[in-house]
């Protein structure tokens, strides 16, 4: 392994649930600060598990993970909280809180960190305007379409200006035009210095972006097969 400080580093990481088989095996990679990666692979390949390990929802069964230059195995539980505040997450199932308005859902990461109401109000409004939901500030998620909910989820993930943004299928519920618009948002964030990892099975989108790929097959990182690349290029 090289010794440069990475934003995310995995060394021989394995992950199993309970006594089940390993869903991730010998995963080793590093993400440089400011990099932009797509995580691709078929359903069940372990993409979501890999993302959960990165955003600290789980500890690995074996191997070493370091985030922001810190070895996680040496950190106490409460020392993970400041690291979590530097990570933005877009969940595949959005995980919006149904009884809170769009505004309150987006403001949540800022309120959790104790940011004063006067400071966060403009930030949240601006961001909701940016994702095209300026007129839905007070709407609750169950009254919004899947695409609108997804945009709220993205706005919530980026509102705290995270150093690392993890997105699990962030364009799964939007049309192509909105997918490109969201991709543009991610590009802009990346230009501002945010490191991005986006899991998608939309190989076309990944190929179109021209960004680096992390490809998972059967729980292992593998280079994407040439036919797959050709398919991607063709589409």
């Amino acid at each position: 392994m090289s010794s440069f400080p990475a934003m995310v580093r995995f060394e021989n990481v394995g992950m199993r649930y309970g006594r089940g088989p390993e869903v991730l095996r010998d995963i080793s990679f590093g993400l440089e600060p400011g990099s932009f990666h797509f995580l691709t692979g078929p359903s069940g390949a372990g993409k979501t598990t890999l993302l959960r390990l990165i955003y600290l929802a789980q500890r690995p069964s074996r191997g070493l993970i370091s985030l922001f230059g810190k070895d996680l195995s040496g950190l106490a539980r409460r020392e993970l909280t400041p690291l979590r505040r530097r990570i933005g997450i877009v969940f595949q199932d959005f995980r919006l809180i149904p009884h809170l308005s769009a505004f309150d859902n987006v403001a949540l990461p800022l309120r959790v960190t104790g940011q004063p109401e006067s400071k966060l109000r403009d930030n949240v409004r601006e961001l909701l305007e940016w994702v095209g939901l300026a007129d839905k500030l007070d709407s609750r998620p169950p009254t919004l379409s899947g695409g609108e909910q997804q945009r709220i989820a993205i706005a919530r993930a980026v509102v705290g200006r995270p150093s690392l943004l993890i997105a699990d299928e962030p364009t799964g519920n939007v049309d192509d035009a909105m997918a490109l618009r969201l991709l543009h948002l991610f590009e802009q964030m990346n230009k501002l210095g945010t490191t991005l990892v986006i899991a998608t099975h939309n190989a076309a989108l990944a190929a179109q972006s021209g960004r680096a790929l992390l490809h998972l097959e059967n729980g292992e990182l593998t280079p994407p097969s040439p036919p797959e690349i050709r398919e991607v290029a063709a589409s």
Partner: protein
Amino acid sequence: MNKSSLVLPFDRGGAARFLPWLVALMVFLAALSLAAVMTLQHALAGWDESLAGTITVELPPIAAATAPAIPASAKVKNKIPAAAAQNDGGLSSALAVLRATKGITSAEPLSRDNVARLIAPYLGNALTPDDLDLPQLIDVRLDPAAPPDLAALKANLLSAVPGASLDDHRLWLDRLFLFARSVEITALLILALIGFVAVLTVMFVTRTGLLVHREAIELLHLMGARDRYIARQFEREALRLGIAGGLAGLALSGLTLLALGHAAAAAEFLGDAVNLVPAMHLKGWNWLALACLPLAAGLVAGLTARLTVLATLLRLP
């Protein structure tokens, strides 16, 4: 857009909706137990106060036909009517001994009218003391500062009136105190049990809430919310629901206690003979103690919810 609005709707978590009802029931039972303990304490103090410093001298019964008729209003002081002294069953001799003893402030024979009132609740008004072979009773008041030597007094009485006996109520009072103390301890145990059940209930309700909101809790955790921030969500709701339920329970118990108070007051028409039944007379501070129960219930609910959430969150990485 209110910062204080709760992120986790704890009261929508199914079981949590029943929390105020459960707390209301527990506060109701706790208030009754506490009121019983406080009433009993008043009654014990009252009995002790009214019986301490008195003794009763009992003289063997004399034939009803020859008994002297002592009117209720008659205060026997230093002189016994001459006719009665002839055959008064030793009453005059006993009175003389008693009044000559230092430390006795008064010694009054119980009049036939008083005796009639004492036996009326049990035997009705058809029978008068004259129809029965009853012992003669002398109510003796002692000087609390310098009480007499009861053993010596008993010996003197026996030599003056063979068969006379002296009752200082101690045995009766001791047994009563023992019984009352047992009731008091039982009521306190019930109170502790209610508190324990309250804690268990809030624990289970909170756990259900945690299950219902598992995803939202994990979301907050992953956003970097500290455990105490998440715990506060549940704590505040549990506190609010606990106090609301507690107030309902207190109102219900207040009505019950007032009704019992009226019932006890209604029983007083039976007269002094039944005034051993403790009346539901609670003092100001007693009501204050009862009024604290909803707050205590809220605090128990809040603290239990907080500790339950914190313990559960420790399972997340």
